[in-house]
């Protein structure tokens, strides 16, 4: 007589695991030693897999038999096609085409009791049994056992370990993802440094050779050409540094905008005019489609010019003679829509998102050796977003051009002005100027320039010297570097502020951010200029009479 302990239906692959677990748990509870637990579980696994594989599903019953001897039996039943060539299989003569022939014969070797009943097209039933070391006292004990098993819900510890395994796996995936990102960032940085070095070297090279030419005292025309070359290099260098600083501000999130109402249509007309000659010289057709009526947005004028300039410059880089670049402005709902469209080399759609990442340069950009640091579009995107706008690039693929569209929220027009701003006098009056800088080359060239413009110039290399000279020279304007040794520019300004009389203080610095600007203004400077000093701006400042302040 036998007692049915448990039935497990096998309908999915996972159930095979459950059947193995149950076999283990039951044999363990019934006092079967470890070796025989493993053997029975393995045999049950073989037969159950056969049932699942050949019949698609099956049923596994766990029973205990008390007489004549105590046994645990596992009956695996399916209603599949039955086992053909049973004798051959059991005698070990059969070689399964699926490589599974060992199952039945192997299972029989592993157990104490084996019985198989198979009928063609009516299914198979296999009973596997193991002798039990102890007699199970009564049904109550058995029922308690099953109760215990079913309360430890199917494979609970299994589930837990599986869970841990999944967590481990997730952590591992996150780690390797982070690692990949780091590697990508690292190689982007390496590429960037290589590019920066390349750019700087080119600039220096051009500067050095133009200087060499100048030293040989060439004729007027050559001199002018060389000076233009040098000028261009300096402008280029300035742009590189501006880009780098912008990128750094963007990365640190310290970008500041001085917003005011701007007519974006007019702005684009003038930017386009500035670019037209350069683009047309390269054989490009350049067209603009801009409404006559003003399109007001609230933007930082310098930044807006930078955005548009960058987009046009970019279109210019990736087009060839014969191609066309068009810029359009229209109103779209609540936004001003600005589009820069070219029919140049374009890019594959999947690369579009990368185009706006800092330091990323497409293979095409590297091939064209366009120069630059791969920062332009990244800066544009950040600037547009800082203005609350949106930037999108679309391309239908390589060779099919690129369209960049930019939406900026429409803004209020400026309040009506009464009267035009005072015109600058144009002619710089001679001023007494004190230059304070510890960088000798800066001081020499700037003082020379100022003297050429008719000013009277004295120089000082540090703070104390500046105060000394100022006491005697009584300058009208002091141009003071902020980063001086010992006594810095701000301290100089604070000292000077205690003096009677009206000296104008203008700060010059190689590193200007909002904070240092603020500190300088508090120390008494009326303006802070970034190095290299824009000479036109300086002239304008010097031209202003004291009463303008």
């Amino acid at each position, binding site marked *: 007589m036998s007692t049915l302990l448990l039935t497990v239906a096998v309908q999915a692959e996972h159930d095979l695991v459950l059947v193995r677990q149950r076999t283990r748990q039951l044999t363990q509870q019934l006092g079967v030693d470890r070796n025989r637990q*493993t053997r029975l579980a393995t045999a049950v*696994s073989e037969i159950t*897999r056969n049932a699942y594989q050949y019949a698609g599903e099956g049923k596994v019953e766990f029973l205990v038999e008390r007489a004549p001897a105590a046994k645990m039996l596992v009956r695996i039943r399916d209603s599949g096609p039955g086992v053909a060539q049973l004798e051959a299989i059991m005698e070990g003569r059969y070689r399964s085409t699926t490589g599974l022939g060992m199952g039945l014969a192997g299972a029989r070797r592993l157990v104490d009791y084996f019985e198989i009943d198979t009928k063609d097209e009516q299914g198979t039933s296999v009973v596997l049994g193991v002798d039990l070391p102890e007699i199970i006292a009564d049904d109550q004990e058995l029922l308690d056992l099953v109760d215990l098993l079913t309360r430890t819900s199917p494979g609970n510890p299994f589930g837990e*370990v*599986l869970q841990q395994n999944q967590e481990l796996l997730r952590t591992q995936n996150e780690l390797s993802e982070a690692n990949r990102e780091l590697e990508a960032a690292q190689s982007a940085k390496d590429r960037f440094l290589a590019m920066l070095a390349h750019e700087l070297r080119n600039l220096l090279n051009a500067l050095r050779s133009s200087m060499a030419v100048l030293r040989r005292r060439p004729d007027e025309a050559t001199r002018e050409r060389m000076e233009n070359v040098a000028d261009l290099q300096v402008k280029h260098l300035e742009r590189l540094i501006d880009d780098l600083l912008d990128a750094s501000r963007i990365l640190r999130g310290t970008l500041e905008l001085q917003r005011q109402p701007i007519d974006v249509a007019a702005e684009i007309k003038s930017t386009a005019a500035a670019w037209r000659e350069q683009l047309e010289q390269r054989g490009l057709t350049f067209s603009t489609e801009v409404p006559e009526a003003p399109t007001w947005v609230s933007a930082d004028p310098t930044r807006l010019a930078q955005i548009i300039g960058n987009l046009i410059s970019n279109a210019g880089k990736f087009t060839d003679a014969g191609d066309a670049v068009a810029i359009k402005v229209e109103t779209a709902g609540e936004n001003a829509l600005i589009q820069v469209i070219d029919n140049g080399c374009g890019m594959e759609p999947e690369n579009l998102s990368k185009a706006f990442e800092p330091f990323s340069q497409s293979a095409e950009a590297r091939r064209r050796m366009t120069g630059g640091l791969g920062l332009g579009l990244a800066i544009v995107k950040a600037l547009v977003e800082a203005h609350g706008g949106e930037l999108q690039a679309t391309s239908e693929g390589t060779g099919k051009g690129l369209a960049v569209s930019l939406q900026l929220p429409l803004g209020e027009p400026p309040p009506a002005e009464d009267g035009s701003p005072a015109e600058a006098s144009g002619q710089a009056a001679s001023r007494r100027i004190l230059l304070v800088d510890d960088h000798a080359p800066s001081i020499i060239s700037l003082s020379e320039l100022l003297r050429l413009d008719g000013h009277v110039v004295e120089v000082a290399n540090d703070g104390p010297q500046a105060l000394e000279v100022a006491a005697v020279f009584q300058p009208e304007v002091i141009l003071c570097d902020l980063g001086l040794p010992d006594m810095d520019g701000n301290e100089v300004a604070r000292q000077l502020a205690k003096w009677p009389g009206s000296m104008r203080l203008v700060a010059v610095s190689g590193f200007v951010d909002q904070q240092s600007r603020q500190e300088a203004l508090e120390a008494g400077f009326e303006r802070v200029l970034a190095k290299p000093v824009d000479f036109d701006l300086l002239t304008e400042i010097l031209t202003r009479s004291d009463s303008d302040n």
Partner: protein
Amino acid sequence: MERIAIAQIGDCLLVTIQVDMHDRLALTLREDLGQRLVQTQATGVLLDISGLDTLDTFIARVLAGIASMSKLLGAETVIIGMRPAVAMTLVELGLTLDGVNTALDVERGMALLRRKNA
């Protein structure tokens, strides 16, 4: 999707099978391991099966398959931590896992790999 974790230690991939694998999980492991071998160009694979208390012919064949695949991909496989009961059962089933190296624990497994790859 369930997966068995594969960790990299130097030139080796360490696979610790902590759970009773269902068949597809074993096959997935074989695929994942193949991909990782190509990616990492590892020269050794340590398969820790100390967590397995049943190893039937299917799983055993998958493990043997992993070993031969790894070999083709330039890596030696060492199965470590096989329980005595599992070993005996395998013998009785008539599976000898030819061509698969075995070692008692991770340390010995690593040492065996170093010797093999020396």
